[in-house]
């Protein structure tokens, strides 16, 4: 059991530390694809380091909520990173929450961020918060439907069980999983504020969603938020890996499989980041009024996956 606790700690710390690396890798791929000179792989760390050492400027009207939010958001993401199986399956912390509670953890972080954005009372903060809520309320049902579809196949909403069932059963083609996978991809693009829903590098306030919310943050608060954004992307990637390509995650009590699991995780993350960069290069950011259609399609795909599961696979 104590070995499990150590492993749990290791995995969480690794996720927190490696998260900016995934963001850096994605940015590097994207720069290459767009014909720019790529930034260093460690650029995200440098940005975090810089921000942590900068002075923090607070608005006069800022309430304690505004100051607490970065910590809340960051701890939500660390919690999520502890729940999702990345290296080893069925760690002692994972029974804390199933996938539905995980959606709730993400929602908690989002609500705090939106409240903090409205707290100072700037126009852009409020605008960003409203847009974020518009995206969120459309993305959440789709995400839940994706989870339900996968749960139907694995007969559980507990992540360790889902991973175990999906990774160790006889290989079969599940059309429903394909539908759910595409829907999951669309939802994670929306939730992580990536193109085509939102542009993470935009400097044009009128098109911002996520960036507009955090305009008022600076210094270490901004660093924490940037870090949690990177961590969120990492957790979503890990979640996608756990649900749709779980092969390689070490089963319970098999320490020997850990190096291979690490290798598999790095390889899958690298491929995931590359695909994300390719899709971001191929697509343009869509108009905000198209976002409901985009997420509606994700919801539709998830529901179709579920229906097809009932028809073809049960």
């Amino acid at each position, binding site marked *: 059991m104590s070995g499990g606790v150590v492993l749990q700690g290791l995995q969480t710390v690794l996720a927190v530390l490696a998260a900016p690396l995934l963001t850096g890798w994605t940015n590097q791929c994207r720069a290459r694809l767009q014909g720019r000179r790529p930034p260093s792989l460690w650029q995200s760390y440098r940005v975090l380091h810089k921000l942590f050492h900068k002075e923090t400027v607070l608005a006069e009207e800022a309430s304690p909520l505004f100051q607490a939010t970065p910590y809340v958001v960051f701890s939500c993401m660390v919690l999520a990173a502890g729940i999702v199986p990345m290296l080893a399956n*069925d760690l002692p912390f994972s029974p804390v929450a199933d996938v539905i509670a995980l959606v709730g953890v993400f929602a908690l972080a989002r609500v705090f961020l939106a409240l903090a954005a409205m707290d100072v009372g700037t126009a852009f903060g409020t605008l960003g918060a409203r847009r974020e809520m518009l995206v969120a309320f459309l993305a959440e049902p789709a995400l839940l439907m994706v989870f339900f579809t996968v749960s139907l*196949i*694995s*007969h*559980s909403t507990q992540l*360790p*069980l889902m991973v*175990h*069932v999906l990774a*160790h*059963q*006889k290989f*079969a*083609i599940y*059309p*429903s999983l*394909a*539908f759910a996978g595409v829907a999951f991809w669309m939802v994670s693009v929306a939730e992580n504020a990536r193109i085509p829903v939102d542009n993470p590098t935009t400097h044009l306030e009128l098109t911002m969603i996520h960036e507009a919310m955090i305009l008022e943050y600076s210094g270490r608060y901004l660093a924490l938020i940037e870090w949690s954004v990177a961590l969120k992307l990492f957790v979503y990637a890990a979640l996608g890996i756990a649900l749709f390509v779980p092969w390689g995650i070490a089963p*319970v009590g098999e320490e020997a499989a850990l190096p291979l699991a690490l290798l598999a995780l790095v390889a899958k993350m690298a491929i995931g980041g590359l695909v994300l960069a390719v899709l971001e290069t191929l697509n343009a950011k869509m108009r905000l009024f198209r976002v*409901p*259609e985009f997420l*509606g*399609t994700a919801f*539709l*795909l998830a*529901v*179709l996956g579920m*229906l*097809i599961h*009932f*028809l*073809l*696979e*049960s």
Partner: protein
Amino acid sequence: MISTGASGMISGWYLQIVNLLAALLLLISFAMLAQRRVVGLISLFAWQGAALAVSTAIVAVFTAQWHLLYSVALTLLLKVVIIPWFFYRLVRKLGMSRDVEPLLNHSLIMLTGIVLVIFAFNLALPISQMAGTVMRSTLGIAMACVLLSFLMMITRTKALPQVIGFMAMENGIFFAATSATYGMPLVVELGVALDVLVGVFVLGIFFFQIRETFESMDLRQMEKRKEH
């Protein structure tokens, strides 16, 4: 601590591929419902025909229903090559390759689509239990494709998308026949194929007439003219 509760009792990998193609057919039907561009619609129609042909070919080979291969050849020739090619040409000649058709209410149409799928799946359940084919579970998908094409014809206002919807419905019916009874007799299928081909050519000529008379391919124009 962990018990395996796998539901992987689908037997035969070829059936899995057929199921996957059936799911793809359903997806293409939804994509057609959402597609605004006429050219995109034609390519989707061609892809639907291709998926249909491949799945039918797999069934034909693995269940030794060799007569199905004639239908496959007919489908490939007609619905993947000739009709899409004819439509492409028509679109170019009529100068509507960049036409974008406004959809009335995207989300409402999609939700209606989901309701139709559930209805079709329920409708097909008792029928597929009676059928003796290996791919009987895909009957629901075939019926859903038919209903979705119906929905597409209802929601479109232009002539060409409606015709494509009609063709897609024919695809769905063909798929239903394959999954319920390993296809219809060859004579029937030849007749249907000929009907479709002639229908397409007649409609092609008709399109020019519509444009000549009403200066638009929008069928709402015709309704207006009638009232005057």
